[in-house]
């Protein structure tokens, strides 16, 4: 104690793994947090626990089959992947799809955004222990889920877009039903906005937490609500409009939702306001939907071309880079899910905050780990964390159970 050279660090630095299996994360991803007491001093992001080799599989599939494969990349934003692949193939084939198909496709995208953002809101409530609001918001998410089920035939995997248009039409009865549903939904979303902003226990948990300053957000190129929560104007719907977004943005009634707060609260507010904006967009789409056919014929063999299809998914900018080669199979198909770009900013957000804030910061970028096999073993005595593959883990656990038969 008296010697000047000795410095005693209290509390000691401990490495806490969050993930790959953790109640806060619904999918595998690992965040090694080094904490001093409750303060996070360092964070490391590890991903890739569930590589499904979709890009490799796609090279042996036809475009039509890839459409459904794309939809299964992610459960929550299935319509965006599905629709974006369809639009990429259409760009490559250089065909124009009918106006009504464009409107229905955009409508599905916006409905998808609504349900994804409400889902995120519920998760955010859950991550800070506000289970009531979690239950209630997911209850009201059912309104939009029912709409999607009604028009597409499936709750999650809508598969509405096909190459050359959409697969199902929207009848007038469905339209009336949806307009009625939007009124109820808007009332509820406004209520959740008020809860998120005015409930003190929740607001205290998100206010000033996980700061991502605009320069750092730019440097790590944050996309989607993460970027918009830091005041970056990144919204493909406005910057690079496609489909029915072109006439919709031209009306000038819709604005990009931005927040300059830069913390989790900013991201939350952006998301909630975006839901209200998306409801208005859906209303506009339904009211201005032109009549006509819903799909155009596209030959299965697509001419050689390379396209970069951009689309604003609920989580941010979604990229499909498709190279066709004249056959009915893609030469190369690269998917960049929006979460991939937000990983880098994650470590910046985590540093300097409390351990208790880690789940909400992780959830704030709305991670979608859709992108097999390893498990982290933490040795209690030493400070080692080792990675074990699933097969080895199975062998080890079988051995353990053989050595330690259950005491009756």
């Amino acid at each position, binding site marked *: 104690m008296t010697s000047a050279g000795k410095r005693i660090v209290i509390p000691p630095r401990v490495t806490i793994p969050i993930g790959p299996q953790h109640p806060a994360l619904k999918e595998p991803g690992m965040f090694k947090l080094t904490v001093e007491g409750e303060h996070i001093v360092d964070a490391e992001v590890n991903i890739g626990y569930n590589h499904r080799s979709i890009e490799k599989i796609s090279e042996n599939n036809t475009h039509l089959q890839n459409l459904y494969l794309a939809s299964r990349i992610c459960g929550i934003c299935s319509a965006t992947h599905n629709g974006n692949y369809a639009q990429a193939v259409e760009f490559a084939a250089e065909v124009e799809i009918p106006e009504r198909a464009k409107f229905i496709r955009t409508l599905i995208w916006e409905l998808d955004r609504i349900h994804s953002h409400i889902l995120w809101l519920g998760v955010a409530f859950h991550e800070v222990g506000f289970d009531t*609001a979690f*239950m209630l918001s997911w209850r009201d998410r059912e309104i939009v889920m029912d709409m999607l089920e009604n028009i597409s035939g499936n709750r999650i995997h809508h598969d509405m877009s096909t190459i050359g248009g959409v697969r199902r039409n929207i009848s007038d009865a469905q339209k009336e039903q949806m307009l009625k549903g939007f009124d109820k939904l808007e009332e509820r979303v406004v209520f959740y906005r008020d809860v998120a902003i005015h409930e003190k226990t929740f607001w205290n*948990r998100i206010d000033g937490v996980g700061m991502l300053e605009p320069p750092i957000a730019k440097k790590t190129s944050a996309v989607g609500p993460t970027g918009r929560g830091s005041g970056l104007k990144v919204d493909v719907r406005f910057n690079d409009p496609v489909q029915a977004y072109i006439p919709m943005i031209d009306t000038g009634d819709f604005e990009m939702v931005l927040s300059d707060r830069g913390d989790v609260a900013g991201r939350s507010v952006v998301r909630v306001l975006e839901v209200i904006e998306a409801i208005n967009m859906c209303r506009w789409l339904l009211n201005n939907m032109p009549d006509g056919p819903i799909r155009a014929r596209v030959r299965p063999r697509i001419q050689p071309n390379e396209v970069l299809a951009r689309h604003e998914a609920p989580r941010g900018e979604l990229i499909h880079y498709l190279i066709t080669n004249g056959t009915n199979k893609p030469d190369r198909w690269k998917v960049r899910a929006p979460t991939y770009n937000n990983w880098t900013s994650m470590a910046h957000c985590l540093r300097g905050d409390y351990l208790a804030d880690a789940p909400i910061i992780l959830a704030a970028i709305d991670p979608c780990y859709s992108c097999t096999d390893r498990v982290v073993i933490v040795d209690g005595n030493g400070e080692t964390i080792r990675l074990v593959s699933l097969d080895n883990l199975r062998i080890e656990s079988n051995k353990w159970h053989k050595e330690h038969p259950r005491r009756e």
Partner: protein
Amino acid sequence: MQTALDATIQLLAQALAVFVFPGILFITFLALLWQWIDRKVYARLQNRFGPLHTGWRGILQPLMDFVKLLGKEDLTPKAADRRSFAAVPVVMLVLSLVSAMFLPIIDMDPGTSGVQGILSFEGDLVFLLFMSTLMAITIVLAGYFSSNRYGQTGSARTGMLLISFEIPLVLALVTPALLTGSLRLSIITHELSKLSPAYIWLMIIPFIIYVISLQAELERIPFDVSHAEVEIVHGWQVEFSGKKLAMINLAEDIMLVFGAGMVTALFLGGPLLLEFIPIPLFSVEFAGFMATTWVGWVYYTLVFIFKSSLVIIVLSNMRTAFARWRIDQIVRAAWKFMVPLAIINLVLVQIALTYIFPILGVV
């Protein structure tokens, strides 16, 4: 011969009281019932059903959970201190049961005035506070014995919770003790029932402080930082499984019985209900009749259950309406708000007792 028989009967009666009613078995029954009420209310407020399929409206679900956990595999981490690790659930269960023995559910000693618990002596309020602190310290040790990082973080948080909310909890209990001039649970309940209704005004703030601190003591939302599942995977409980977890859960439920019972006894008049009505019929004779016959056993128990379940509903509502606070926010809230409030309240009570009530003529 006669004395030996008497002693045996006395012993049997006491054993019955301790083990069956209103002792361990009854308290366990109450614990499971409270958990069911808690879950049902929690679910109802969230527009859900809650437990549904075991027994009438799922009333046996807590028992079912307990039995199921007993049959599960019991694991001990390799790095844990085996003996201490195994001892923790037992210690917790014993502590909570002993605490619950003090609750004045029925009158065990009709000779003395007031409704006595199974255990009752002068100064038992201090002893109870000591027991609840000991409980928190056991939790801290439980986390450290499990040698898990989540567990250790959870223990550290329990320690923080202990130093922040134990103080308002104690200070809130001073008011009833001050008004009655006693530290004995039964005397406090008895004396409070005799005070004039004007004293209710003095009891409101301590009641609120006590209920909030109780929520923190029981580690429920918004104070459940020490076993927040999304951050530290159930904190200090993370390594416990099987029988140990069953015992810990039961101990927590019994602490809920104890906490709700303390609120009932100290602020809501314990098992007394009709005695508050200022009619001669419900005065001393009624109490005496209740205390000496079997009618009192049923009547007092039902009143106690009724009042406690009201407290449980309030606690469940509190659990529903808030998000989880961060530990630094909790400590700040406790030291900036709750502790000063408790101290100010004490000053107010003193001023009221010394100056205001004599002027107003309240006896």
